[in-house]
């Protein structure tokens, strides 16, 4: 269409106020800032009570401890954003960690191959999750729940009661778990790079925006011709691959794997993602938020220890925090909706 001469018209104001948009956007962005602030305040308060909390050692603990959960939270975010969920990641981590460890025990691979194998194992599992979800249209909650069991079972059969210890693993490999660069742990650097890349990609590429579109309105996604099945499949694949990588890193960090490694991680990761502001029913939330959520959960754990509050309080506080985060989200969105509706109503009376 070419622009032909039309009678100049004064722009009619949009009936919904434009400024409300900026406000909402600001609120959403504030979520990440809010999380970062919460972490800083928490560290400050704890330091006030126990000055040792701000030591290099403890900062390293904060960064390292949240790293694996944060890494898996990246993949989980991709999946949850599409209105799905991946509950198999804890089992995937366990299986990947053991197999990589076992290969080291038999001197079958070098250090780098360890990561490749870990990622490959996870990717295969993710592919299976995605295929079943997409092809049979079975809810991913059920698929990945079943896979949680199946993988943990296979893990158990392979592990067969054995355990992998630090002595069997190359020193260069475990070094990733404790060595630092300029005081920053390697493990954290690796995860931070992945979070940064994923966070940037989720904002920047067409296919990643389509993940949000699918979760935001599956129906509109169909109408817009988005290849939803393929996108969801890839989201599961990446989630699996990152869980597999987390397994390889788990081995490096703890240098000890048995058939229980990673048990229950899936719900911790989902918690971190939700605390990080990712909507459980898809469509919104960022990788950065999810990673910060993981960091916050871990900071709370360590702060409790440092504040000499019994570690027994960890879980209860994490749970309460999670509920608060969900309720806060709801409150926020209701407030925004109410505000938008009010501006609309005002216009109607003109």
């Amino acid at each position, binding site marked *: 269409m070419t622009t*032909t001469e039309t009678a100049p018209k004064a722009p*009619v104001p949009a009936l919904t106020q*434009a400024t409300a948009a900026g406000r*909402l*956007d600001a609120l959403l962005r504030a979520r990440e800032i809010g999380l970062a602030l919460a972490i800083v305040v928490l560290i400050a308060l704890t330091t006030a009570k126990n000055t040792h909390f701000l030591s290099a050692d403890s900062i390293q603990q904060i960064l390292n401890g949240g790293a694996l959960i944060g890494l898996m939270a990246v993949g989980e975010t991709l999946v949850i954003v599409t209105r799905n969920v991946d509950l198999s990641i804890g089992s995937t981590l366990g299986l990947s960690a053991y197999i990589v460890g076992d290969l080291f025990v038999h001197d079958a691979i070098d250090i780098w191959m360890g990561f490749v194998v870990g990622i490959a194992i996870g990717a295969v599992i993710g592919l299976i999750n995605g295929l079943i979800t997409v092809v049979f249209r079975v809810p991913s909650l059920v698929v990945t729940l079943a896979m949680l069991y199946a993988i943990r079972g296979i893990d158990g059969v392979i592990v067969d009661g054995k355990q992998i210890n630090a002595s069997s693993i190359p020193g260069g490999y475990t070094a990733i778990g404790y060595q630092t660069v300029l005081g920053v742990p390697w493990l954290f650097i690796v995860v931070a790079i992945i979070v940064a890349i994923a966070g940037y990609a989720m904002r920047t590429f067409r296919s990643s*925006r389509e993940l949000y579109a699918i979760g*935001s*309105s599956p129906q509109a996604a169909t109408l*817009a*011709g988005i290849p939803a099945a393929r996108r969801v499949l890839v989201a599961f694949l990446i989630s699996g691959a990152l869980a597999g990588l987390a397994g390889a890193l788990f081995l490096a960090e703890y240098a000890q794997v048995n058939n229980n490694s990673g048990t229950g991680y899936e719900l911790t990761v989902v918690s971190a993602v939700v605390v990080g502001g990712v909507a459980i029913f898809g469509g919104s939330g960022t990788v950065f938020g999810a990673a910060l959520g993981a960091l916050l959960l871990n900071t709370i754990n360590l702060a409790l220890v440092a504040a000499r509050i019994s570690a027994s309080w960890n879980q209860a506080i994490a749970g309460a925090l999670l509920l608060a985060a969900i309720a806060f989200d709801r409150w926020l969105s209701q407030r925004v909706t109410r505000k938008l509706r009010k501006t609309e109503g005002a216009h109607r009376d003109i």
Partner: protein
Amino acid sequence: MTPTDEPRPVLELAGARKSFGAVHALVDGRIALRSGEAHALVGENGAGKSTLVNILAGVHQPDGGTLTVGGEDVVFNGPAAAREAGVSIIYQEPTLFPDLTVAENIFMGRQPLRSGRRIDRARMDEEARSIFKRLGVALDPRRVARGLSVADQQLVEIAKALSLSAKVLVMDEPTAALTGVEVQRLFDVMTTLQNDGAAVMFISHRLEEVFASCQRVTVMRDGKFVSSARIEETDVDTIIHQMVGRDLDSLFPKTATTPGEPVLEVRHLGREGVFDDVSFTVRAGEIVALAGLVGAGRSEVARAIFGIDPRTQGEVVVDGKRLEPGRPLAAMAAGIGLVPEDRRQQGLVMDMGIDQNFALASLRKLRRGGIMRRSSEQRLAKVWAERLQVKFGRLRDPAATLSGGNQQKVVIGKWLAREPSLLIIDEPTRGIDVGTKSEVHRIIDSLVQGGMAVLMISSELPEVLGMADRVVVLHEGRVTGNFARDEADETTIMRAATGQHGRDAA
């Protein structure tokens, strides 16, 4: 039609047919859209307009007929094909991505890119802004779509169509959910589009809109093309006659009754921001119609009476007793039944059996010693299915297998099984084929003859005029008219419904 002296149509559909199972939704669909022209498609509900739109949208594939775009035969095997051919559809309630920004909604899958296949957000926002500027509206491309009014959502869809360089814009009842100001703005946008050379197809029930904004009008009835004419060659009466195709009187089997005692008294009912100071009375043996434009608050009033929605002011009195707010069970106990507006979402549980749907409001009555037997449920369903002449396969088939009209009968039967003293029916015949329509009207008439009070909400004026003993008109949540049967006619109701009755127009 004399095609010789007119420019060639951009898009032409001829002889289109489409059936859904046994229902022939479209028998002979025809339309020819020309560049720079706004073409209205009118017809009663069920005339096949939406099916025709869905064929143009590529959502439905026609069983027969030809479709040409730019002089070439085309087949739309999906929405993408239609879009590619330059056909964009603006639905009454667009499906946007609520979590994404306006600009992303416009450009999803086609975002402008910069190096490395990265989305160029600045350019995307800028392009969106320039489209809105061309349309003459100020909408922030960076805000999320959630919370946009329906009118603004349509604008986003129109902007999307423009960004696709659509040659044909099909608007499916866009004004039905809009306020007066919003409608005017939409017409301004439509004019801009026409001036830019687009062919616009416009579907509306409001003939005054058709005459105000379109250059050509096509009438459909019962899935068939009836006529097509330039707007100055026809008039409202002709079109109404072509749409209805029969005399109104024979359509509505209205029997005169003498109203009895008041059953429902609504006094100063209000809900903040929705409706205010609504008062009226419904007496036994009387049909009261709540009329008004879509969005005037009619259904909301009905829902507040029934207790599904809250109310903040006033009172509802049934048979002399005040009704607690917000409690459907109390309303049901007081003898009220509500046949809701959206049959498929609110009226029926579609995956449940027909028998179970019939019994759904009477479950407690079917209890014997705390236990409910399926046989008693089926007995109840059988009685009412026969009495209302529901056409079904087996009683335990899901309600989804019924046709629209028969589904409506089930919803009505569900409440009749409770022997209510007041039945509220929201849009009794929406989306029902003509034959079943009059059956539903007969059912309502016989109920009233039997002494029941009926509160009817209808967007179809003929239905209101044909059935109601009294018409209460709402405009923007307030009562702007209350007419007895002999005072009510199309003009008085429309004046009140558009707020020209005592108040200034919006």
